[in-house]
């Protein structure tokens, strides 16, 4: 041991012990991390290595090992630190590492690696940030996969380009911004546990498709396929490219007897083409175009989801009976406020109210302006619940309309926060000397993970009037306030 003002330097020679130089460098670097150690070296005692030690001032006086001796040298704060480091170094050299266990299985990361992991894959579901979605969608299409693109914020130009690519390859590109599909009985995204049956649905509307499919289920029939195409598919720019392909597939799908197309009203020339296409489909078809007048031409058109579901159910011989709900006494305030998590359900409510000449404020809380920086209200019900509770303080609102969407992808228990909020709102209004009527429908089936009956009971327990369809709830609102005022 040499102790100087620069600290202590000491060596330990382990005779005839060979270790690879890499092992020794790793050992030295671990010794250097010990508190109080300034330098450490671990080398075989060759003349070359001794020269290295000499040059870096790390060769204690008198150190003269044989070339096949292992040498540890440590410079540190004091003798104790150095001795402890040498002990640790020696222990490290003779220690035996335990078996670390099985080999790590690589998790596939890219579309190509996923294909390699499961060559039988047929469909890619894409929910990456929208910026990257076109890249992933294109990779999947080129790999021969159908695609459901849940991501939004994809440009129309990308949508047009990628749908053209998909059509060339006879592949479905559902989306972008497609939340719902049921293919061969397999639900994807936000979808309900709907019985399989003879009705094929092509939907440019997620909750619209959920409502229609749930009503068909309630009618005792079911869905063969539910193909989401994304909200813009029937726009003038996209031109119904994917609706066309979906209709091609449904026209030859043996399990499909009747076809329903669900969408917001398309551009005029697109609507014309769509109706012509449906007329030539070879199967009975219903155009469920929200807000359009109900007509019965070669292809019947229905302007509400319930209307479309009702007609399709009739066409497959399973008429839908929507039971009547006895309305309560009308409240003094005639203002109607709708707070919706489902965009198309909100749209249907506006249609029913507008048809009756009732003005109302109906908000789609799933719209981008309400979801910046937070999850969709179908996933996280809390933001909608706050607004429902706050509605109790509005003297101008007498009728509050809400939806509740169950199914795969939705919150585990969306009913409880809504019921609590509704109870809070009703109590607040009452404390203020007013009546607030809360009207709801539950979009779901008895097979959904959340439990349809339980959800309905939870709402009813809070005094909410639960309807068998969203349109029925809107009709009750009309009955209560026809001719009434509009909340600001």
């Amino acid at each position, binding site marked *: 041991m040499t102790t100087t003002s620069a600290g202590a330097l000491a060596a330990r020679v382990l005779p005839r012990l060979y270790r690879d130089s890499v092992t020794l460098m790793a050992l030295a670097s671990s010794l250097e991390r010990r508190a109080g150690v300034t330098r450490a070296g671990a080398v075989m005692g060759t003349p070359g290595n001794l020269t290295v030690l000499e040059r870096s001032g790390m060769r204690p006086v008198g150190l003269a090992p044989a070339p096949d001796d292992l040498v540890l040298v440590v410079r540190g704060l004091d003798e104790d630190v150095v001795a402890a480091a040498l002990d640790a170094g020696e222990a490290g050299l003779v220690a035996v590492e335990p078996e670390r266990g099985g080999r790590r299985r690589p998790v*596939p990361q890219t*579309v190509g690696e996923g294909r390699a992991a499961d060559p039988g894959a047929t*469909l890619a*579901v894409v929910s990456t940030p929208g910026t990257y979605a076109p890249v992933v969608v294109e990779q999947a299409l*080129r790999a021969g996969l*159908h695609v459901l693109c849940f991501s939004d914020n994809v440009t129309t130009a990308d949508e047009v380009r990628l749908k053209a690519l998909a059509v060339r390859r006879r592949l479905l590109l559902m989306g972008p911004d497609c939340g719902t599909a049921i*293919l061969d009985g397999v639900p*994807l995204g936000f979808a309900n546990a709907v019985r399989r049956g003879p009705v094929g649905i092509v939907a440019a509307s997620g909750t619209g498709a959920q409502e229609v499919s749930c009503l068909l289920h309630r009618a005792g029939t079911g869905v063969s396929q539910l193909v989401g195409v994304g909200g813009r598919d029937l726009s003038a720019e996209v031109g119904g490219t994917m609706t066309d392909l979906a209709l091609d597939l449904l026209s030859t799908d043996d399990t499909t007897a009747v076809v329903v197309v669900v969408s917001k009203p398309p551009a005029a020339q697109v609507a014309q083409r769509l109706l012509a296409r449906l007329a030539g489909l070879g199967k009975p078809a219903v155009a469920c175009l929200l807000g359009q007048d109900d007509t019965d031409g070669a292809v019947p058109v229905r302007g509400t989801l319930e209307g479309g579901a009702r007609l399709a159910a009739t066409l497959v011989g399973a008429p839908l009976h929507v039971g009547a709900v006895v309305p309560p006494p009308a409240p003094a305030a005639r203002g109607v406020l709708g707070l919706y998590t489902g965009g198309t359900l909100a749209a249907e409510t506006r249609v029913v109210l507008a048809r009756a000449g009732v003005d109302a404020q109906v908000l789609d809380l799933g719209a981008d302006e309400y979801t910046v920086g937070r999850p969709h209200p179908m996933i996280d019900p809390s933001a909608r619940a706050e607004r429902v509770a706050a509605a109790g303080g509005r003297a101008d609102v007498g009728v509050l309309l809400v939806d509740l969407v169950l199914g795969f*992808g939705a919150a585990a228990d969306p009913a409880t926060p809504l019921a609590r909020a509704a109870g809070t709102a009703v109590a607040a209004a009452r404390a203020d000397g007013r009546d607030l009527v809360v009207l709801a429908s539950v979009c779901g089936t008895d097979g959904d993970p959340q439990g349809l009956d339980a959800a309905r009971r939870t709402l009813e327990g809070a005094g909410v009037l639960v309807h068998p369809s969203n349109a029925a709830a809107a009709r009750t609102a009309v009955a209560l306030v026809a001719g009434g005022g509009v909340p600001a």
Partner: protein
Amino acid sequence: MIAGGVRVLNVGLPAVVQGVPAQDVVQLDWRPPAFGDVAAARLGVVLDDDVTRAANRRALAAVHAVRPQLVAVRPARDVVPGLGEGRTLLHAGPPLEVERMCGPVRGALIGAVLLEGWAGTPTDALALIEAGGVTLDACHHHGAVGPMAGVLAPSMPVLVVQDGARRAYASLNEGLGRVLRFGAFDAEVVDRLRWMRDVLGPVLDGALRAGGSVDVTSLVAQSLTMGDEGHNRCTAATLLLARRLAPCVAEQDRGVEVLRFLAENDHFALNLSMAAAKLSMDAAVGVEHSTLVTAMARNGVEFGLRVAGTGERWFTAPVDAADGLFFPGYGIADANPDLGDSAITETLGIGGFAMAAAPAITLFVGGTPDDALDTTRSMARITLGPHPAFRLPALNFAGAPSGIDVLKVLDTGVLPVINTGIAHREAGVGQIGAGIVEAPAGVFLQAVRALHEVRVR
């Protein structure tokens, strides 16, 4: 309606496929591609088509068809194109102006000038170099590769590897310690270079004349089954080469000196595997539309990448120091940014790509043999196919992952792992450790843009 049934690759949120039976879902561990550069990712997707795939098959087949033979050891001036004219020195990595060169390269250039006798002192040598009195160029531009500083001077003997009419060259390995390739240039270094010039080169050349050429592919292949990875560990390959040459070397005048030198130099075969890798990769240079990487090289300032479809163009980005293990008394603060043409071995599929073969040096990549297997498996994700000759016993004799694909690097975000030595940042000190570096992402982003430009032109 979906032929084959609904079997899902899920790219993103697991909740979206909550209703799909779990056995029908492959959940990807997806990350943004192309290191988050969406524009580059899009170009990558555009290029990932039948044209590129066919080009890459051609390029990789060309690389794998090369069978380098060590045929001679000759003075560089006699064989390396363009090195015999005037005062020319070659260096590792992409070309670089002398003002920007790092310490070790400057040191090596000084040593080379002294060796050539173009100046009498290090000061005069540096003055000559800085005044432009020496033409400097990249080894790669002359069919050559050099480890670390990679400085090649006209009188230095080079390994000549050949396949048919094509040739590639590398300097002779000086051993460890104070050596020119790590920037050391004192009398010990230059004296050794003189000995290599006057004794080592001629003796080895004579041995090859007497004993015939050496098949480098089988030499490297055998060494991979003996614990080498062909870059940082070349012990087995050196033993095999020395054994092969020994009888003929022993018969040469001063042959025993040469045998003694070979016996003390575990890295001697590194330069041979580098020259062979260079010859192999050059077979793909200029294969139209191929996204295969044909060279990775560093000059201590910049990392350079070459891709088959863009010919001899370099894509460059600043290079970092290696993360590594250090000799006693040194640390990361002393390290020069990475340098050397030796990454040509990884370009072919050995070195860091064949870590699974070299359990003795697994500490460079994490510490255990499993880490080494993971490294090789990870490199398989960015390469075009297994090398047919370089089998890895630890991976059930799978071929070493060979032929880096720019598109796969972008798609996976996995960067090539390169095993490397670490030079002291100051000229003259030499080697201070060894470790690994990753190629910088920027060069792959540049490459995909250039490949796309070539395609749309």
